[in-house]
């Protein structure tokens, strides 16, 4: 499987929380290559199952949604008032190009930027209340074509940087989706567990999808595959992983110690580059919801380090996806938990 190509195709699909179907359909297409029964439910969650008659079932989860915007008002002049969906960095919004995903097709727009003569000194960052989307449409046309509740996304085609790095919006968490697909390819029929896969919706707005998918999966253990912070200028390097240094294995009071240890052991044994990510409580990923699903699930996190999370210019290294996938594949093959 061509990781780069798959990631680019997945990142090109839209899936703002609560409206994930375009992205879910692309993910379903890929998942169907590795699993026989793949479905998308009414929310946009993608499910796949693969049974080998093993004792235990593992859930591999990545979230399919991405941050974005939701239109909540249209002015008389046709400007669109929006609210963030998920944790959007307001400071970088001015003059961003966006697509408004209207029922009649994508509409290009630009987020307004308040010129210095009316902004209140440069110490203050942009206030999201002052920003609108400018589509160039007049009020009537805008209101006719853009019903309230329409989503908008950053408009930026995935693009290759130097080496094996890719920049795009939605790498959080399409990188996780690709990691799982690649792990399934690597493990083939050698899994020591029955496998369920969920590409869950609405993670960015409170892990709602994972609550549903983990209930339905009825699994014994789970790995949540998400992205985490790679060190970059302005970050605290003690709190970040490093790009290109492999999968970030989560260690936290809310995660299964046994699984974290097994993952580290398998990485060492198979010479797979890895790093640890220590968290002091909940992880901010689907693992938080999955861990307390039904009567409880042993859960681990394997995260792909990315830079500039929740921006239109997220950056990932393909090698980190490959190494995360290798690690998960080894865990599946091992099957000793």
């Amino acid at each position, binding site marked *: 499987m061509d990781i780069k190509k798959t990631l680019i195709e997945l990142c090109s699909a839209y899936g703002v929380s609560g409206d994930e179907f375009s992205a879910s359909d692309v993910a379903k297409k890929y998942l169907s290559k590795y699993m026989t029964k793949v479905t998308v439910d009414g929310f946009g969650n993608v499910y796949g199952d693969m049974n080998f008659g093993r004792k235990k079932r593992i859930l591999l989860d990545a979230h399919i949604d991405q941050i974005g915007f939701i239109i909540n008002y249209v002015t008389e*002049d*046709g*400007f669109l*008032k929006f609210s963030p969906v998920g*944790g*959007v*960095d307001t*400071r*970088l919004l*001015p*003059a*961003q*190009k966006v697509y408004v995903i209207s029922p009649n097709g994508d509409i*290009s727009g*630009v*987020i*307004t*930027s*308040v*010129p*210095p*003569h*009316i902004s209140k000194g*440069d*110490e*203050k*960052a*942009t206030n999201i209340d*002052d920003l*609108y989307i*400018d*589509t*160039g*449409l*007049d009020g009537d*046309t805008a209101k006719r074509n853009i019903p309230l509740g329409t989503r908008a996304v950053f408009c*930026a085609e995935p*693009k*290759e*940087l*130097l*080496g094996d*790095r890719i*920049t795009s919006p939605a790498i959080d968490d399409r990188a996780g989706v690709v990691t799982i697909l690649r792990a399934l390819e690597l493990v083939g029929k050698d899994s020591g567990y029955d496998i369920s896969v969920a590409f869950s919706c609405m993670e960015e707005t409170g892990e709602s999808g994972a609550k549903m998918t983990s209930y339905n999966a009825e699994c014994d253990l789970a790995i949540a595959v998400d992205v985490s*912070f790679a060190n*970059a*200028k*302005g*970050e*605290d390097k003690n*709190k970040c992983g490093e*790009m290109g240094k492999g999968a970030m294995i989560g260690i936290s009071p809310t995660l299964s110690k046994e699984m974290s240890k097994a993952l580290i052991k398998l990485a060492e044994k198979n010479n797979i580059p890895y790093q640890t990510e220590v968290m002091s409580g909940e992880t901010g990923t689907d693992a938080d919801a999955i861990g307390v699903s039904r009567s409880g699930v042993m859960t681990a996190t394997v995260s792909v380090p990315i*830079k*500039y*999370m*929740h*921006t*239109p*210019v997220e*950056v990932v290294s393909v090698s980190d996806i490959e190494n995360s996938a290798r690690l998960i594949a080894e865990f599946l093959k091992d099957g000793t938990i």
Partner: protein
Amino acid sequence: MKELLKELCLLDGISGDEQRVREYILDKIKGFCEYSVDNLGNIIAFKKGKNKRDKKLMVSAHMDEVGLIVTSVNDDGSLNVDTVGGIETSAIIGKRVFVGEKRISGVVGSAAIHNISKEDRKKAPKLSDLSVDIGAPDKNEALKYVSVGECVTFDSDFTELGDNKIKAKAIDDRFGCAVMIKLIQSELDFDTFFAFLVQEEVGLRGAKAAAYSIAPDAALVIEATTACDIPGAEEEKRVCVQGMGPVVSFMDRSTIYSKELYSLAFEIANEKGILCQTKTMIAGGNDAGAIHTARGGVKTLAVSLPCRYIHSPSSVADMRDLESSYELIKQLVQRI
């Protein structure tokens, strides 16, 4: 006009690095006028009209655009940058760029929002908090592709918005360049000097030299100016309004314009039924600041295209204003 503007906006040319724009323009005006390129890189063109003009007229626009310059390379391969021209950090952060002669793709990153304190989220990021990431894993690798001192430009396409708008980088002032190319390619009634200028965004520097060389009696500066006709800005704070035609200003922060030429512009607009407006705030400035004090003084007027989100990768202009501005400028060139 739209096609010409599109091609011009897509060219990279921050202040001091205007050669791609200059070559494009030279190619377009060749055969339509006499021209020379001066020591700074300004194009000074002389277009013969059907008649001699009593007084010398200089029409000008600037070729440069705002951007960034690489100042140093960090150990992690990311690039530190400084702004060239007036750009706010909010226009840079989270945007895509091209770096250097090799046009290496890069992105402007900062710490993830999750890792920024609540207080800092309310502040504009400092330039020193940002860096340009070209994907290089370390300093050595980065230096294979980029050198210190190289230019960084916005990676921004030219898109139509809605029915009448366009979005691009560098509309300020490739619009002026496009208008002048069209005028040079057309037949003019009177002899006219056209100056395509460098280094406007870093202190109106090209204009100083060119105005000295041409020694005009009158000057017409073609520009793009801030339109703030967006929600939250009321009355005079809007500065000017898109779709209402070119902006003719009486005063900005660099110039008090010629009353005579100001009146002439509105007279012509009235006579020919061209929409035309003035600026409702004393804000901004342009090459007129340098030109009107050249030698013993030059009667100067600026005609500007209303431009939203100016000095950002996504400037927005109204195509109706493009046309009405061109009409007014054409008339002014015949009548000054």
